């Protein structure tokens, strides 16, 4: 940041001095001594340093300015980050004995009714004389000066850098006619430029610092969410992250539907005893409390000044007990359910800039995600606990039966003292062979099903000719299909389907196998394939129709679940579950309908599945069972 050289070689009497660049019109120059030069430069440096740093020391600024500029009151008015309000610092001379000291007071008020607001529109110096003492609103008399009735002479200049107005510098004296002097005015404007540059520098730096803090806080929260932390820890990280990055206090409250009460789940920067106590009041879910309002209206809400906001009388107590003056709430919700509320609290009224609000919403959505996920995980865990036992017992049963047969046959053959006939020997060995086949089928099915359930099904998709797949499957079932007249009802010019060829074959295989097992001998099995142009995405529809038992309505969903026993199940009841897993991994649907004959009586079953012609993305199957 270049200060330039501001030559404050000002002689009150004469009225000429150099401008910033040191060039410019100069008539007779009153050349100062080198000592004075130094003093001036030093003073400028001190002026600048007084406004730098996280807490600008305006009293020092006043002390420095006083040496060159007359005033009894000086005010620095800066625009708030959110541009909705102005921050005013007023420095008065202390009226006590000893060296002059300055006191600084601060307050804020809305931009609309401020002098600065006007200055933003038309930046220009404003010179005023009040014969009877200053009397008027901030917009007319100055944001810092307006309350001081003693003042007779005022000068307000914008703190402007390039075209940007950051705030104003307001000066007032009790004595009249102080600022009429043009040279003085120029000096003040020059000082204003220096101040503006210094302040802007600080603001930019501050922004970077804030951004860094926020980055770090965001990273912490993301880490918490992606590592397997417990929900309470995650919520804690979120409020702490928010508090750290935005320099505010934060809390998460969950709404318990059963008791209709709010429960404080995480806190940062708020009193751990008082805050929960206050919130336990059950009136808090009403609209008169900002939290209740948020819960009911499913919208973020902001209150800039709790003590004066009439919408939320119930929250006045926050200001009293906890020194909270502004509040921002964010509902934690999905679609329709509101779980709770995320709160930001600031001790200052109007403490939330748009930047803070953005970050806040980001954190809020993370919080919702965390809550949602953990609830989901909880639900899944419950379900899988109940399923696990069923799976284990069926697997062990189904594997043991063929193993028992094999063991029996083989040990029998091994027994030295038993004499088996050639035929008996042959029969036992054939048993062993077929039981082994059965075991193989089961083990393979188990492996496939676990792949599907774990979401580890990797599909190798390519453009497949469904007809080719069907023929391939038929070839594999050739022997068993021999006794069933099979009819193919294929729409001509079927499009190719983007799918995993081997998995698709498995689907057909399982469906045909199912049809064969449940059809009476000689009954016809039909495979019909056509194209459905439904909604935006056309799909291929396959129907496998058999004349076996009709699946009753209450079973139609359950048969697609793994280890379903009972109706139309066989072996370990995995076949249809596998079909479902594969079809759904291709973004298709599978279901069963009843087949009705001409008289309207149930005469068979129709298994139907659809496949989008182009299944895009999604390599693994959802855990569907």
């Amino acid at each position, binding site marked *: 940041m270049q200060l330039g050289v501001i030559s404050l070689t000002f002689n009150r009497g004469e009225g000429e001095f150099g401008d910033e660049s040191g060039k410019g019109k100069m008539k007779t120059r009153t050349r100062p001594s080198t000592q004075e030069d130094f003093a001036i430069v030093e003073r400028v440096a001190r002026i600048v340093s007084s406004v730098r740093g996280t807490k600008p020391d305006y009293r020092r600024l006043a002390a420095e300015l006083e040496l060159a500029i007359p005033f009894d009151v000086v005010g620095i008015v800066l625009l708030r980050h959110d541009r909705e309000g102005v921050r005013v610092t007023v420095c008065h001379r202390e009226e006590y004995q000893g060296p002059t000291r300055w006191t600084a007071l601060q307050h804020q008020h809305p931009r609309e009714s401020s002098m600065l607001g006007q200055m933003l529109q038309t930046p220009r110096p404003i010179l005023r004389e009040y014969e009877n003492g200053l009397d008027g609103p901030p917009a007319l008399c100055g944001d810092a000066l307006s309350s001081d009735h003693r003042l007779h002479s005022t000068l307000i200049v914008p703190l402007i850098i390039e075209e940007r107005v950051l705030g104003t510098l307001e000066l007032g004296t009790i004595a009249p006619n102080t600022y009429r002097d043009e040279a003085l005015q120029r000096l003040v404007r020059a000082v204003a430029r220096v101040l503006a540059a210094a302040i802007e520098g600080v603001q930019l730096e501050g922004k970077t610092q804030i951004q860094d803090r926020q980055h770090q806080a965001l990273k912490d929260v993301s880490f918490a969410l992606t590592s397997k932390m417990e929900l309470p820890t995650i919520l804690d990280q979120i409020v702490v992250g928010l508090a750290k990055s935005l320099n505010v206090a934060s809390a998460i409250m969950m709404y318990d539907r059963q008791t209709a009460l709010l429960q404080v789940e995480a806190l940062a920067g708020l009193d751990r005893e008082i805050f929960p106590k206050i919130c336990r009041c059950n009136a808090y879910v009403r609209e008169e409390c900002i939290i209740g309002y948020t819960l009911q209206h499913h919208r973020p809400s902001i209150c800039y000044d709790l003590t004066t906001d009439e919408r939320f009388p119930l929250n006045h107590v926050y200001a009293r007990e906890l020194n909270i003056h502004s509040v921002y709430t964010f509902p934690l919700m999905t679609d329709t359910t509101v779980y709770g509320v995320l709160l930001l609290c600031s001790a200052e009224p109007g403490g939330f800039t748009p930047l803070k609000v953005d970050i806040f919403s980001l954190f809020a959505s993370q919080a919702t995600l965390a809550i949602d996920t953990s609830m989901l995980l909880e639900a899944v865990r419950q379900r899988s606990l109940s399923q696990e036992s069923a799976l284990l017992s069926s697997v062990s049963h189904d594997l043991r039966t063929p193993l028992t047969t094999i063991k029996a046959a083989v040990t029998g053959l091994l027994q030295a003292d038993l004499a088996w006939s050639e035929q008996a020997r042959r029969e036992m060995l054939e048993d062993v062979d077929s039981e*082994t086949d059965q075991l*193989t089928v089961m083990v*393979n099915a188990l*492996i496939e099903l676990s792949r599907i359930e774990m979401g580890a099904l990797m599909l*190798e998709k*390519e*453009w497949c*000719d469904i*007809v*080719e797949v069907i*023929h*391939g499957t038929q070839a594999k079932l050739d022997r068993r299909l021999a006794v069933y007249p099979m009819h193919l009802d294929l729409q001509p010019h079927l499009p190719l389907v983007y799918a*995993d*060829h*081997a998995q698709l*074959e498995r689907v057909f295989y399982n469906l045909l196998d199912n049809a064969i097992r449940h059809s009476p001998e000689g009954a016809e099995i039909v495979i019909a394939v056509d194209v459905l142009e439904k909604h935006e995405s056309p799909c291929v529809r396959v129907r496998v129709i058999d004349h076996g038992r009709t699946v009753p309505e209450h079973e139609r969903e359950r048969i697609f679940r793994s280890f379903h026993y009972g109706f139309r199940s066989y072996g370990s009841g995995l076949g249809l579950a596998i079909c479902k897993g594969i079809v759904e991994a291709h973004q298709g649907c599978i279901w069963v309908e009843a087949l009705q004959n001409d008289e309207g009586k149930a005469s068979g079953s129709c298994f139907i599945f659809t496949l989008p012609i182009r299944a895009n993305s999604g390599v693994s199957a959802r855990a569907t069972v």
Partner: protein
Amino acid sequence: MKAKGKHILVVDDEPPIQRNLRRNLTAMGYEVLVAENGEQAVEMARLHYPDLILLDLHLPNGKLDGIDVCVQVRQLMQTPIIVLSALTEEKRKVQALDLGADDYLTKPFSTEELLARVRACLRRANATAEITDPEVLQSEDGYLYMHVARRQVLVAGHEVRLTPTEFELLRRLMLYAGKVLTHRSLLRAVWGPEYGEEADYLRVYVRQLRRKVEVEPSRPRYILTEPGVGYVFHVRVEVQSS
């Protein structure tokens, strides 16, 4: 074709399978050598130059696994290799085929299947050893006839016009009849070494070829799909040299 005198190297880490294979193959007249791990396999191949190698892909004891053995053996010799793979090893199976294995068997397999593959492999090895540049390729039933030099293809006696790519594809399939050719090997052979991943592309050509050459393109008899692996010319082919 006689089994006598043919040496088969069995590579498997599990003793029951070793015993089983040794027994069955010996019973058919083959001489059997057994290696327990990858390093042994390469060593024994180098020393004995077997006529065929049965290689289990899953070799947990040792630094070399089935794929490594494939690669190293191929560097030394052109001995046919049949890989024994488990159901979950699809990708590795294809990888082995791409790296030089000739055929595969999925565990558990029946002895019948094993012996059939072994016979087919040995026969192919014999045939290709004798004829490197066949003039005529003809399917056993006479349905498909290809005269390579004249670039002529007859389907049931009628001439069929094939594009150069289709011709090359068919020629390759017929030359290696009975052997599953992986997508990659076909792509490289027909299109060039820069190709390898474009299975979709290959599919289109196979489809086209089937339409010209098969009786029922959707129910092919000659050019069959091996899902996830590649294609195979399923019918025996008689090869005539010039």
